């Protein structure tokens, strides 16, 4: 057996290996030696061997055979062996390994060891990898150490307790009294641990929250001492006295002050003091200031304090340090809905950050910019956003494109602007837009009837310059097919028209048809467009006829089918051709089928749609199906069928998307969809707030709040704020106003868009603030269930 080398020598040899294979060879030899040594009953080099094994493990090689050696070393009486043994345990054993249980007894013994360094090893290991079982076993020991030991051990015991509470929340009760008394310690390490423990206890159990609120004055005092104390070399970091402790206390105060007026009041002055006096020239100070801002925004603070906080964030935005700019934007994102006007003031700087080099900063700036778009700034913001789109990193393009579409839809100053914007996006980032963009744009175009001529000219121009962007190609083909006659007329008010001949147009469409860059969908669009032109042009119908007949034997089945049907239209049904291919009526948003994006599907085909939709239903992930079953089942009281006088029950079990539903029923004779009923969620002193859900899909709902006033005098300054659980995203649109006329003469409405992954988690808390009859009021209402819109 080769003599065992010392750790450093082994490391040197491994690093000297020139190839991966050589390295592996060295390591295999070493591991064999180590394994042999482990098997020997007693040898002095055990700790060195384990250390070598741990090094090898760090390089990524297997080391399970070392687990038992860790157990043995931990049980040794020599400190040097315990030290490496515990390190090994933390690296090789985790709670999932069976061997980890074997060290529980050793840990228990070591927790009461005479040497605090041994105790420390045990505490560290327990807090790092202690399983729930181990924690349950050893919790009483930890509690004992929390009460009666020196500060070196107390601080570690506190963090150990945190780990235990995270593993077994019910055990929190055990530590609550000790946690409380730890707050009166002077030692910073102990205080730090105590604050973290209390934070954990409060986050787990609302009863603890109530109890520890009483400690707010104590915490405020500790903070004050830290902030006003003189220079303390031991804890000073860049001029701030123990920023780590300050940040943790601020975080705890945030949790205690949330939704509680008394607690928030008690900390108001302190927060103002910290916010004003903390020097933020270095990271340590900025960290404290940052935490202070987060706390101010989350508790019930005075408006003056809130303004101070937003201004600090604004200052951060101008900081040279990119990190500071980044966290400033993260914070602004959190408050952009509730403190919209305050954040708007910094819009210029935020938009500038779109041009930052760093992708993380860009992402934040994009989110914020989209949230700040309003009717007032839509034109200038869109210019910046479109500029951003052309240079933004690829991972952000899809998000930017859909954000732009949403903004355009909500605030478009004119239809022409809207169409132009969408076209611009398609040209710049057509490959990254969602599938619905094509039918949505087509619907928009049909609705803007005065702009058909302008639109088709613009699209034709785009098509002949480039056919790479498929979504653009599809929309262009569709338009040319529909409005080709306008294109050929050569007159247009809004744009200088090109003189286009019929051959030019057909050439363009045929290029799409034949290009290898075109997807099958685009080719389908092009073929249909060519066919439609047969009734809109005069001279080249034969050309069209021949194109169509060629594609009758195309390999692509979809194209072949279309061509064959169009052929039939030319031959047997020529008398119907003009009628079938005439101008389409304006497409109504709700009734366009969500299929492959081609709305020019003939009516006959729509009867086939329920089957594929159902097929998709069955393949959909289980939880989605359960959601549907929930909606259709009887467990959900808000399902409203009372207003609906038709017997839609049998039909509603067959289809999912209400769009297809509408289609079916429309074809079957049309039933007017009943308006979604509204539910009163709040009523007090004459002010009532109703809620109505529209446009509900599996993952989103549009909620409209309507506030009305039956008192004798107007309600003014009406403001609605909403909060949702983390898994839900919220977007509040601007309210219709803030004055609710008296005696029900008018209402204030506000729309909120919610998106979520699981409808079951959907809850909302709404805070109303308003002035009624001279007094300022604030009320809160929790909404746990949302009415579903009626199936039509």
């Amino acid at each position, binding site marked *: 057996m080769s003599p065992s080398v010392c750790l450093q020598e082994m490391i040197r040899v491994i690093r000297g290996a020139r190839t991966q294979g050589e390295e592996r060879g060295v390591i295999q030899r070493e591991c064999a030696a180590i394994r042999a040594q482990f098997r020997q009953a007693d040898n002095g080099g055990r700790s060195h061997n384990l250390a070598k094994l741990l090094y090898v493990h*760090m390089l990524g090689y297997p080391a399970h055979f070392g687990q038992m050696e860790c157990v043995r070393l931990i049980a040794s009486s020599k400190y040097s062996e315990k030290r490496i043994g515990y*390190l090994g345990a933390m690296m090789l054993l985790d709670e999932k390994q069976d061997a980890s249980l074997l060290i529980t007894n050793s840990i228990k013994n070591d927790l009461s060891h005479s040497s605090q360094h041994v105790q*420390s090893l045990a505490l560290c290991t327990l*807090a790092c990898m202690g399983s729930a079982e181990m924690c349950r076993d050893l919790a009483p020991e930890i509690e004992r150490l929390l009460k009666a030991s020196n500060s070196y051990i107390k601080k570690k015991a506190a963090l150990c307790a945190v780990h235990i509470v995270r593993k077994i929340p019910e055990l929190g009760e055990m530590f609550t009294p000790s946690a409380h008394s730890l707050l009166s310690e002077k030692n910073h390490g102990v205080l730090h641990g105590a604050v973290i423990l209390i934070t954990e206890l409060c986050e787990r159990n609302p009863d603890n929250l109530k109890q520890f609120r009483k400690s707010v004055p104590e915490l405020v005092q500790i903070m004050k001492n830290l902030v006003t104390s003189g220079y303390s070399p031991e804890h000073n970091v860049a001029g701030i006295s123990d920023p780590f402790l300050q940040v943790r206390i601020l975080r705890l105060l945030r949790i205690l002050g949330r939704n509680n007026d008394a607690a928030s009041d008690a900390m108001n002055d302190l927060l103002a003091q910290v916010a004003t006096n903390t020097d933020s020239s270095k990271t340590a100070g900025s960290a404290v200031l940052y935490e202070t801002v987060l706390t101010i925004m989350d508790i019930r603070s005075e408006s003056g304090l809130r303004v101070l906080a937003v201004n600090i964030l604004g200052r951060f935005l101008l900081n040279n340090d990119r990190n500071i700019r980044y966290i400033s934007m993260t914070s602004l994102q959190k408050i952009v809905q509730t403190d919209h006007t305050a954040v708007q003031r910094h819009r210029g700087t935020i938009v500038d950050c779109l041009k930052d*080099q760093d992708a993380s*900063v860009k992402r934040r700036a994009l989110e914020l910019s989209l949230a700040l778009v309003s009717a007032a700034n839509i034109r200038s913001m869109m210019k910046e956003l479109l500029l951003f789109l052309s240079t933004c990193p690829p991972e952000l393009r899809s998000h930017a494109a859909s954000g732009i579409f949403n903004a355009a839809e909500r605030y478009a100053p004119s239809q022409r602007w809207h169409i132009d914007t969408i076209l611009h996006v398609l040209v710049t980032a057509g490959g990254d837009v969602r599938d619905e963009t094509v039918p949505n744009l087509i619907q928009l175009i049909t609705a803007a009837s005065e702009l058909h001529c302008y639109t088709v000219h613009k699209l034709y121009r785009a098509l002949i310059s480039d056919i790479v962007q498929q979504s653009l190609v599809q929309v262009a083909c569709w338009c040319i097919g529909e409005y080709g006659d306008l294109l050929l007329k050569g007159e247009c008010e809004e744009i200088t028209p090109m003189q286009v001949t019929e051959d030019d147009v057909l050439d363009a469409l045929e290029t799409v048809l034949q290009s290898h860059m075109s997807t099958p969908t685009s080719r389908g669009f092009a073929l249909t467009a060519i066919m439609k032109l047969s009734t809109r042009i005069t001279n080249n119908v034969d050309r069209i006829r021949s194109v169509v007949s060629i594609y009758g034997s195309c390999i692509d089945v979809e194209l072949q089918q279309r061509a064959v049907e169009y052929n039939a239209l030319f031959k047997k049904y020529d008398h119907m051709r003009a009628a079938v291919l005439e101008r389409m009526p304006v497409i109504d948003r709700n009734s366009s089928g969500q299929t492959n994006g081609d709305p020019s599907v003939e009516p006959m085909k729509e009867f086939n749609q329920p089957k594929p939709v159902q097929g998709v239903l069955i393949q959909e992930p289980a939880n989605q199906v359960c959601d549907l079953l929930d909606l259709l089942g009887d467990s959900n009281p808000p399902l409203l069928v009372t207003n609906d006088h038709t017997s839609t029950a049998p039909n509603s079990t067959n289809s999912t998307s209400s769009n297809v539903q509408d289609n079916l029923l429309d074809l079957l004779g049309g039933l007017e969809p009943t308006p979604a009923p509204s539910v009163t969620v709040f009523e007090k002193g004459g002010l009532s707030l109703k809620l109505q859900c529209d446009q509900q899909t599996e993952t989103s709902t549009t909620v409209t709040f309507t506030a009305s006033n039956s008192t004798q005098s107007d309600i003014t300054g009406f403001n609605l704020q909403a909060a949702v659980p983390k898994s839900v995203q919220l977007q509040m649109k601007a309210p219709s106003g803030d004055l609710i006329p008296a005696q029900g003469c008018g209402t204030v409405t506000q729309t909120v868009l919610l998106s979520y992954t699981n409808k079951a988690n959907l809850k909302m808390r709404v805070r109303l603030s308003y002035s009624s009859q001279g007094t300022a009021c604030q009320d809160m209402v929790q909404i746990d269930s949302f009415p579903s819109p009626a199936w039509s």
Partner: protein
Amino acid sequence: NRNERRRIGRGKLRLQKWYVALSDTQKKKISREVIQMVLARKPKMCSFLEWRDLKIVYKRYASLYFCCAVEDQENELITLEIIHRYVELLDKYFGSVCELDIIFNFEKAYYILDEFILGGEAQETSKKIVLKAIEQADMLQEEAEAPRSVLEEIGLT
């Protein structure tokens, strides 16, 4: 709550500490992903990355990257300070620490980390106290490893 911290040198993992239970394969996968992301960052970029539902906070010191994966509600700036404090501790201990120190004395680097951070949270905010504790522990270790006196060997003490 810190989930894991890593030191990366030249694309190789020098140290890693995990505070959540994951299998070896999972740990390897996560390490690979994070290392790739961090090494792809350019010098002037900000120190924060979003990854899955966590935040990665990293800072470069010479040839070493120090990374922390923390939960969403953590204060990123104070995490940077924690990283800096750890580097200061290493520096004080080794005397102008360099990557080789950490490679050849990795277990000491772990001991220092474990004296500063416990269960994913900072346990001591005073540099002095941490360093003193390590010093005392090192002395204990030396005593334990010291060659046994002749009397001890024959069992007379």
